[in-house]
């Protein structure tokens, strides 16, 4: 159940692909701790392995993030979702969508794939319960047509986790 966005994906612009190539080189030289980029020849879709941080609820668990870049990256945020099975977390829906402001309204071109990954890991690490968001079933039902999380109007209500 990979969320193939309803909007057809356009190839990366020249600016976007230049920037991503530099991010990838930087990632290879200096990868964020706990993450592994799965090598493919597709610059527009990265699959990244996440290891839960030791001493947290997700220690010794491994998940996969799928990062899709829009044509005009970094003017627009990348689409980041967990591939199934998504970790049990109050801000992560069972279809892999993540409720995290920097992926939507608070995105800025000063951020990178690497900094986004670190934010997601910190979100996982600060969780105190393993559970789905309260509105999980309703939300996931609404997304059945393969809607991208970037089309959701998110409410960022909780800044503790």
């Amino acid at each position: 159940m990979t969320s193939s966005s309803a909007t057809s994906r356009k190839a990366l612009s020249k600016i976007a692909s230049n920037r991503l190539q530099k991010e990838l080189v930087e990632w290879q030289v200096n990868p964020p701790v706990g993450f592994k980029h799965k090598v493919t020849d597709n610059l527009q879709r990265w699959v990244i392995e996440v290891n839960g941080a030791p001493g947290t609820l997700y220690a010794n668990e491994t998940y996969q993030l799928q990062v899709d870049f829009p044509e005009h990256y970094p003017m627009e945020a990348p689409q980041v979702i967990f591939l199934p099975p998504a970790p049990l977390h109050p801000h992560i829906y069972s279809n892999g969508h993540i409720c995290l402001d920097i992926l939507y309204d608070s995105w800025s071109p000063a951020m990178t794939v690497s900094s986004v990954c670190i934010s997601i890991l910190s979100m996982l690490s600060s969780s105190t319960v393993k559970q789905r968001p309260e509105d999980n079933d309703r939300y996931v039902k609404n997304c059945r047509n393969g809607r991208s999380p970037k089309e959701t109007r998110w409410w960022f209500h909780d800044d503790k986790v």
Partner: protein
Amino acid sequence: MMAKRGLLRAGIATECAGQIRCRELANSSSFCRKLYSEIEEVGWEHLVRLDDNLTFLSFRVLDASGRVHVMEVQVDKTYPQCPPSISGDVPYIPKIEWSATSRLKDAVIQFKKHVDTLEDFWSTLDDIDNSLWVVNPNFPCRAMCHRLVNIGNDCIVLFSINARSPKTVPECRFMGPDSSISPLRKAWSRNCKKWMQEKSFRDNLVCVFGFELPKSPDTEKDEQQLECGICYAQHLPIEDELGTKSGCPTDYQCDNANCRRAFHGLCLMDWLRSITTTRQSFDVLFGSCPYCSEPVAVKITNTRS
């Protein structure tokens, strides 16, 4: 009975205090309303700071070349009978013409005119800051007329630029070992009449002293930082779609001295246009630096010629 009367009196007293308080509030709220409507006239997008009791505010003023200047305004409760007091990052403050019917907008317009008349002064300072090894001030400061420049050979020269005629020969003081300074002094008194207004500051100095001057050791570091903080490239790609901007190097730098991130004006413009918090006034976009969140302002450029 006595106790009751006492209570009554206290009640009246609080009522009086309440009336006074109301009157004060009414007065201050008319002051607030007036000030708000005057800020509105200038444009909220130009406002940088406004303190809680509305007596101190600052505006961002762009000069003809797109440099950002900050104008600070202090008003008191007697405003607008008494003119606001103005300060800013300028070498001298203009005299603000003020009458009882004047508004904040009039002060801003006069300040902008003042900043524009100083164009030669700004460009001379930019020229010095960009082409010479400036030791002090540490970061380019617009209000200061002096620059301490390392010209090599253990010699430092203090240049004072006349803000009213910045292109003429600057005043200078030499500092360093006597043996190196005396030939410099001689060269200066012999050649300073060769100073030409249309030449750059550096070229004039080279002509007067007769030797090449060192560049700031930071220049190399700066060149690495000339990568655009948005597209990560030094030069825009060469594409017809980018018109005159095709292949262009970074041409914008964040004004915040602690940030100084470089950008392509075009990338910054594209970013500001893609978010809803950006404000536009004529052909200038106002938003914040993606790195430090300090205010930035970019002129809209049309790539499609």
